[in-house]
């Protein structure tokens, strides 16, 4: 039974937001951090309390780096109960993640690589007016917490057209999300079935059937880990690449589809190999209902190295139930209209990958699926969309009689920021806020008050 009233809503709920803001914070001292946390808690909704259909127009999440938990005054024994990869942080794991060269932390633009990053406040809002109201409230809170410094912030904006989620390249998003036991969500065909909640939320059985590791229960229970990625999308470069490698608009669309594994409408090449099918792409009951081992073993439809095939190899990999992740996030930066020259402004995706075990889930995906050149024995390839590309690698598109090989693939994306956060449960937030208080309330009565 999931303790929905103790789990932050972002883990289980996708909100109908069109805008938002991420604020990255540093605490000068434990008291300042806890003062901020005590006030922000009132705005953080649990999965049980969140409302996405009624009058609610904004949704707030709070999470902390390991340094942030330390800055709040968490004791050494509790800090030591977190795994090494979280303690070290994303920047220190750059070599494992493939964040080298132009993706290296020294080039990140938002201060997230520094040890002084302690917390993030995530705001998703239904419209700009509500976002502005929340921003003013948070700014007001910060004036009451002089020891809390804003390292950076990022404004989020959906890109037109607004009737479906997509990135700046135009690829439809939110097509495949794991479904966990204990929720009312029903898995769409091909989405991998229902998974044990311990794959995503600490304190519950996972797919291994073994004992599951967890930090001290008063902090760990109902929590999770979030890997934050700020990924710039080079839209002008991407469009120029399509134009270079496709003579007609139809050929260009096919190239875009071959890089992703889906047409930009969302229709998978396995089910629509020759021609786009926008209706299929929008139909969640059909657009994931396929496999690879028998249907496309050689990658004639979906190239073996395509983004979709790397991020979910389906029946061509083992242990898939232990590799799934929840993704939340949004686009940022202004829309670059089709046909417009690149204006040099940064735009991209700022996403959170949520999982119970960073090294087994997120780091595996980055290290093996995204950046291992020998994935599927491709030899000299990385993920064409989010892999670390330095211009020396290639991309092979299987085709009879002779495959097509594109050499010198450019980097369509660049990592501009990133961090590992811990997403505490509601009770754990109260526990953290109460650290150092002589009259610190226990988590349970405080939790009761938030219902």
């Amino acid at each position, binding site marked *: 039974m999931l303790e929905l009233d103790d789990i932050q809503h972002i883990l289980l709920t996708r909100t109908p937001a069109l805008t938002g803001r991420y604020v990255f914070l540093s605490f000068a001292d434990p008291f300042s951090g806890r003062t901020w946390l005590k006030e922000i808690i009132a705005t953080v909704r649990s999965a049980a309390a969140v409302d996405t259909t009624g009058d609610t127009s904004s949704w707030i999440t709070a999470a902390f780096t390991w340094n942030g938990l330390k800055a709040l005054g968490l004791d050494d024994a509790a800090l030591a109960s977190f795994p090494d990869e979280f303690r070290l942080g994303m920047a220190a794991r750059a070599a494992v993640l493939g964040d080298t060269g132009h993706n290296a932390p020294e080039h990140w633009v938002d201060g997230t690589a520094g040890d002084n990053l302690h917390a993030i406040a995530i705001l998703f809002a239904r419209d700009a007016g509500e976002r502005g109201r929340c921003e003013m409230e948070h700014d007001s809170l910060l004036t009451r917490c002089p020891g809390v410094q804003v390292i950076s912030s990022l404004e989020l904006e959906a890109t037109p057209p607004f009737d479906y989620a997509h990135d700046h390249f135009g690829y439809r998003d939110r097509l495949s999300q794991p479904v966990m036991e204990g929720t009312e969500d029903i898995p769409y065909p091909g989405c991998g079935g229902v998974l044990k909640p311990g794959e995503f939320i600490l304190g519950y059985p996972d797919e291994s059937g073994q*004992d599951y590791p967890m930090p001290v229960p008063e902090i760990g229970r109902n929590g999770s880990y979030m890997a934050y990625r700020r990924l710039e999308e080079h839209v002008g470069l991407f469009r120029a690449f399509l134009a270079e490698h496709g003579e007609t608009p139809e050929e260009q669309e096919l190239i875009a589809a071959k890089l992703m594994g889906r047409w930009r409408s969302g229709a998978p090449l396995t089910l629509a190999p020759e021609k786009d099918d926008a209706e299929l792409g929008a139909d969640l009951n059909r657009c994931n209902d396929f496999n690879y081992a028998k249907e496309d073993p050689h990658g004639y439809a979906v190239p073996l190295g395509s983004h979709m095939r790397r991020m979910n190899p389906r029946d061509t990999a083992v242990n898939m139930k232990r590799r799934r992740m929840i993704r939340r996030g949004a686009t940022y930066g202004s829309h670059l209209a089709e046909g417009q020259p690149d204006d040099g402004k940064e735009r991209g995706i700022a996403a959170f990958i949520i999982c119970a075990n960073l090294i087994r889930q997120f780091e595996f995906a980055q290290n*093996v699926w995204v*950046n291992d050149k020998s994935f599927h*024995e491709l030899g000299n390839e990385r993920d064409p969309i989010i892999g670390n590309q330095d211009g020396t690698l290639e991309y092979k598109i299987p085709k009879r009689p002779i495959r097509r090989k594109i050499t010198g693939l450019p980097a369509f994306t660049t990592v501009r920021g990133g961090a590992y956060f811990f997403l505490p449960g509601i009770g754990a937030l109260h526990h953290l806020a109460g650290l150092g208080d002589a009259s610190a309330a226990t988590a349970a009565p405080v939790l009761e008050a938030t219902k």
Partner: protein
Amino acid sequence: MATALDKPSESNALPIDEVKGRQSAVAIPDGGYFSDRVEQGRYGPIFPRTPLNYGFTIIAKIKPGTRENFHAYAANIEKAVAGVPDVLDVLKLHTLKWVLFDINEETYFMYQGVFDTDFDKYTEDAVGIFAATGINTVFENLEGFPEDWKSNPQAFIQFVRDHHRPSFMEYAEYSYVTAKEVKSALEVKRCFSTILDNMQL
């Protein structure tokens, strides 16, 4: 990130793309790493790719009185592979060799494997396969093997690292070739043979 094509400054070996499929040897510094080409894996530094690709040689003392268990589980593996030939597929194996030998009346086990990928990449998958095939039980008869290995891949891989004895020279008659490439070449040969047979009609 260091790549397999980067030739370590300490090595006189020819670059991979020049010797792939041909004979080559690589002399490896003591300790198993080229100091200027250490790739970081999720569970620590990855031993360098050699003409054999990747692999390890684990040498560990067995628990007293368990020698027969090793022979019993060898039979288990034989049976498992006969029943499901690709049962070990996830390990990206070329060869495995298991050896028992005695030193000063104590018995040691050597597990030598040649793989197409570093063990670090598929550790968790390997743990699952080990549990499913009975290889795990062999390891459980080794002194110092962590009892919580099924839920603690970190401890499992640490045991492997602690008991791995890295090579200081490796040679291959056909260098840097993957098992899949070997099998693919044999399949092409078989198909051509069938074509030629059909041309006789």
